[in-house]
């Protein structure tokens, strides 16, 4: 321990600079004064020029950080049977996959798919408050397994507010439960939440690996949170009465479909994406390939509206990822992340259960306060080093990291993007969600699910 502390004290100049750039980037992201994609791109430029260029004078490190040659590899598009090569630097597969899904989701939103689904489900449960809340929790979870949680909550919270205004209900309990379930659903699959996509593509796990591990834990967690939210809000929900007149005044689900043709096509593309993702371990198609394919099909299906769809892609988020990956690669190339791994190893005493608990809880707490994407991206090389140095199964650490970052983000209004969007929609419609109101419900729910995840991961480790 003492020797490692000594190593920590004797950081090289490039390590100090890499850490300084990383810390500056994180502070600027938190302060939110400069757009976050400009922050990560600026930090990436600094990392390349100052750390790789001036200090290390290592052109190879720059190429590895930019990772542009990865496109030419066959493994970028079609995975080989035993993929073990570890790619560092910009995770283009993540960026391409997210771009493809953004285009698909935009197409679905334009066709009216999400609103139709929400209205259809509300009609199926006859707009009764308790079944409505449970149904929206389940649909939030299910959609977030395949679609980014921001989109899921954007539509779900908007429909919830609309229903609440028509039915004279309080939408806040429903929105809070939907946010939680969107984050939980995101943790279930490889494509549900950005940290999972980054973990999956960087460490070569498949959709099935995720769904059989984090997916199982998330479903158990979902059962627990449905019970929890019912216990917390059942008194308020029982008091709310929906009259026949209210129900008659509701718009029909079909009325929200903008174009039947676009609706059916976008639904088919979505189903195709789900099938391709579920089977990608067998077809060996990488998520990058799936992303490109889905994007091309969606763009071809919308014809002349192609340009409009492309304009709606959130390029800032994609640039944010690009810069972030370069900064993390700076920490990796300079050996800073190895020191972090050694530190965790020392604190845990090399005990596997302690390492799982540390990764899970530290990820959860950090993600409740800071953006979980930079955190997850930074921790991937750390858990890889930990696994090599302790002989621990890397997948257990990967699941701990994925679950910690995805679920921990639910605890506070700023922990995850879905929380920000959900509270914003509620606030804008005159249903204020304060920090206190949010945390009173969501922190206990987060702690419950993290405990469930911890015990199941312990069980995985022992068995």
């Amino acid at each position, binding site marked *: 321990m003492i020797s490692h502390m000594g190593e920590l004290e004797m950081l090289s100049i490039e390590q100090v600079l890499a850490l300084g750039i990383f810390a500056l980037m994180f502070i600027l992201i*938190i302060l939110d004064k400069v757009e976050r994609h400009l922050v990560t791109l600026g930090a990436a430029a600094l990392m390349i020029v100052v750390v790789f260029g001036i200090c290390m004078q290592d052109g190879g490190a720059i190429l590895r950080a930019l990772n542009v040659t990865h496109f030419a590899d066959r493994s970028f598009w079609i995975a080989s049977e035993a993929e073990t090569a570890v790619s560092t630097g910009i995770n283009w597969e993540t960026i391409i996959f997210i771009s493809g899904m953004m285009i698909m989701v935009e197409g679905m939103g334009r066709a009216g798919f999400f609103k139709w689904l929400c209205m259809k489900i509300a009609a199926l449960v006859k707009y009764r408050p308790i079944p409505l809340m449970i149904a929206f929790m389940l649909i939030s979870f299910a959609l977030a397994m395949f679609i980014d949680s*921001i989109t899921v909550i954007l539509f779900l919270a908007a429909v919830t507010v609309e229903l609440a205004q028509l039915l004279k209900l309080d939408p806040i309990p429903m929105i809070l439960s939907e946010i939680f379930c969107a984050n939980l659903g995101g943790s279930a699959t490889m494509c549900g939440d950005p940290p999972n996509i980054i973990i999956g593509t960087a460490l070569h796990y498949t959709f099935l690996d995720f769904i059989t591990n984090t997916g199982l834990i998330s479903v158990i967690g979902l059962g627990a949170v449905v019970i929890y939210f019912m216990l917390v809000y059942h008194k308020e929900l029982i008091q709310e009465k929906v009259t026949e007149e209210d129900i008659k005044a509701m718009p029909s689900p079909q009325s929200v479909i903008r174009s039947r043709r676009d609706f059916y096509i976008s639904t088919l593309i979505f189903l195709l994406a789900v099938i391709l993702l579920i089977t990608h371990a067998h077809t060996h198609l990488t998520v990058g390939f799936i992303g490109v394919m889905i994007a091309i099909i969606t763009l071809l299906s919308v014809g002349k509206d192609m340009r409009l769809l492309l304009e709606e892609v*959130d390029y800032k988020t994609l640039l944010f990822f690009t810069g972030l990956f370069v900064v993390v690669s700076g920490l990796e190339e300079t050996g800073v992340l190895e020191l972090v791994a050694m530190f965790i190893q020392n604190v845990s005493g090399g005990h596997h259960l302690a390492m799982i608990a540390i990764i899970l809880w530290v990820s959860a707490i950090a993600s409740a306060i800071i*953006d979980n994407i930079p955190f997850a991206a930074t921790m991937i090389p750390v858990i890889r080093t930990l696994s090599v140095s302790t002989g621990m199964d890397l997948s257990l650490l990967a699941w701990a990291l994925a679950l910690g970052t995805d679920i921990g983000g639910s605890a506070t209004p*700023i922990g995850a*993007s879905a929380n920000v969007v959900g509270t*914003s*929609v509620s*606030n804008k419609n005159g249903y204020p969600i304060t920090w206190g109101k949010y945390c009173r419900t969501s922190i206990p729910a987060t702690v419950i699910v993290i405990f469930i995840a911890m015990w199941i991961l312990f069980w995985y480790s022992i068995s």
Partner: protein
Amino acid sequence: MDEQVIIAIGREFGSGGHEIGKELAERLKVSFYDRNLLDHMFIGAEDVKETMREYEEKLSHPLFSRRVRGHSNSLAETLAEMQFDFIRDKASDGESFVIIGRCAESVLRDNKNLITIFIRGDREIKAKRVEKIYELPERDVYSKMDRHDDQRKKYHNRYGTYKWGDSRGYDLCINSSKLGIEETIDLLEDYIEKRIEKMNGE
């Protein structure tokens, strides 16, 4: 009054800006908006008003707020935007009114019928006024004044075109301590009437 007139008043805490604005609204027989803006925005929702009151004309701490694709979890920020929309709607409906704070001089800067005023005061005179109104011990008066002015400044500088109290952001800046509240009102009424005459003549 033929033409619409909107009077946006910025003010230092204790300068009497609120009282001056209210009296001007009464003399001009127009609506008066201050904290009561929330009553107009959230009709019948008492609990919402109570919650929102805590976030009015304030800024969120950067550590407690985050922005994602144009959405912010900050109640203070959302409320500010909602108030700006409300003020814009009132102005575009042709209503005449006096409004206190809320960056109205920046929000409505394109309205040709806007008159913007900033009211300040001498520190000691303001302190005496605050001491009397809030029945505070002297030691608490200055900290209260500084706290409120600091909040107003930060809020204004976040959303306003010019910095809070910067004379370039207002048509008229006045020290209410020199003439006293009543005479300041008279002077401002005079100024506003002349401006209205000019507006009607154009």
